[in-house]
């Protein structure tokens, strides 16, 4: 299994998409951090307190989750789009193991995205904050929790993307489905139809919010992580069964 995960990581690393996504995540995070820091304290903008670093680390979570989701989707659905599923399943005829290796590899890729973004935020913000007169200590347990939550949310979104990618044979359809999940559109609809706003926190978008923006309306962080992981796992199992039975003509 280790060699399969290694092979999947190599696949991710040797396509331009992954590197572009990582570079965009880094650049976007830097830009966002700079924007928040320069605007802070101006009229009409919230000023920064000693929880500044926590806020800044969580600020790019939405785009980062999307990035990981897209990586996961492309990694799985791309096998069918480019026909690489054929050589992949020639080497590893046990297709379920390939899907499992992809889940692990995209989760690792998600962790990498979150890690890169966190380093960027800290690199920009830590030297800048004292100049704005804000004391925001690095040694803050709350900050560590936020970073952990972000990493978990982004990593689990990568795995969720793999599940979505397995479910759809068509890469475009998979990406559209992924966007709907990420944006929470489907969830708003479900909640709206059922008239039960409390249901929202149990759906994927709500569950990832528990990790990136924990509050009274969300699940506990651990529960959010479990719910998000469960969605990824269920989609991967259902999608994996489709992948296993699919004729590669």
């Amino acid at each position, binding site marked *: 299994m280790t*060699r*399969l995960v*290694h*092979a999947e990581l*190599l*696949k991710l690393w*040797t*396509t*331009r*998409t992954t590197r572009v996504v990582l570079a965009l995540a880094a650049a976007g995070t830097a830009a966002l951090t700079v924007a928040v820091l320069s605007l802070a304290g101006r009229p009409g903008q919230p000023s920064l307190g000693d929880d500044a670093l926590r806020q800044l680390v969580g600020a790019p979570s939405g785009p980062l989750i999307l990035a990981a989701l897209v990586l996961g989707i492309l990694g799985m659905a*791309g096998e069918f789009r*480019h*026909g*690489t*599923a*054929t*050589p*992949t*399943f*020639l*080497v*590893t*005829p*046990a297709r379920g193991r390939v899907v499992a290796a992809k889940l692990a590899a995209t989760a690792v890729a998600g962790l990498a995205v979150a890690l890169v973004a966190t380093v960027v935020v800290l690199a920009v913000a830590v030297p800048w904050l004292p100049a704005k007169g804000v004391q925001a200590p690095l040694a803050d347990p709350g900050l560590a929790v936020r970073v952990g939550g972000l990493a978990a949310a982004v990593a689990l979104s990568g795995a969720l993307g793999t599940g979505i990618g397995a479910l759809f044979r068509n890469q475009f359809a998979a990406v559209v489905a992924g966007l709907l999940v990420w944006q929470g559109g489907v969830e708003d609809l479900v909640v709206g139809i059922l008239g039960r706003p409390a249901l929202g926190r149990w759906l994927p978008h709500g569950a990832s919010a528990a990790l990136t923006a924990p509050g009274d309306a969300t699940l506990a962080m651990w529960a959010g992580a479990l719910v998000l992981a469960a969605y990824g796992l269920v989609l991967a199992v259902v999608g994996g069964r489709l992948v296993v*039975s699919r*004729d*590669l*003509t």
Partner: protein
Amino acid sequence: MAAITVQGLTKRFGDVLAVDKLSFQVDEGTVAGFLGPNGAGKTTTLRILLGLVAPTSGTATVGGRRYRDLPDPARRVGAVLEAGGFHPGRSARDHLRVQATAAGLARARVDQVLEQTGLAAAARRRVGGFSLGMRQRLGLAAALLGDPEVLILDEPANGLDPEGVHWLRGLVRGLAAEGRTVLVSSHLLAEVAQTADQVVIIDKGRLVAQAAMAELTAGADRTVRVRTPQPEALRDLLLARGATVGIDGPGQLVVGGVTTEQVGQVAAAGGVVLHEMRFERSNLEDVFLELTGRKGDPS
């Protein structure tokens, strides 16, 4: 000992019967040509053999086991399917690195097979910019990674230039000389005629013939083509002499079972005028076309 055994194999895609109760064997250490017109079911058969397509019924095994039950399949079987299967953004070398990593093969094999397939110079280029011929070579490189004893090649000559075809022939001969089993499909008999020990011919998903190359060519030669203004008269004379006669266009006869000398004697004795007479050794391609019943079909 059979390296490859296909037994009562049937595959139905919706209404289409792609493979129909197909059975054949390929012996260990032989090169088998897998022939049939386009759409005969060759690719489907090979993909079933490789575990990529599930059969409707029947079995296809390599070394007595289904492909998906083989431990370490990359070390047992190497396959080249259609020239796709590459991510356009990945370099040739990275494609092979991924395959080698997943199969648990030594990294050094990557450079060896790149060398062997003449791709060393293009190894770091993206596959998206590769010609069809280069993709075929990369497919072969991937198939050779695990140094397998069985090779399954689906139309490997597609997209190769004449020099490439020559190279491929040499490669297949070399692999066979090392005692490997090679099953190579083609819609052109000439492509495998020089390398194959045996041929399996299918059409419309069914087995048409399985024979050693020598068997197939024996008895299929010797026809005499005659042009005459009196075809009916000559036909009757030759039939009386025990020859087989077919009419092939106005004033054209195709005569079997006799020599040119005998046709000349019969014509002279019967006072028939001959305009042209030609001994034809019908080639394998004719045998193939005859067996698959596609003679004269535009294709």
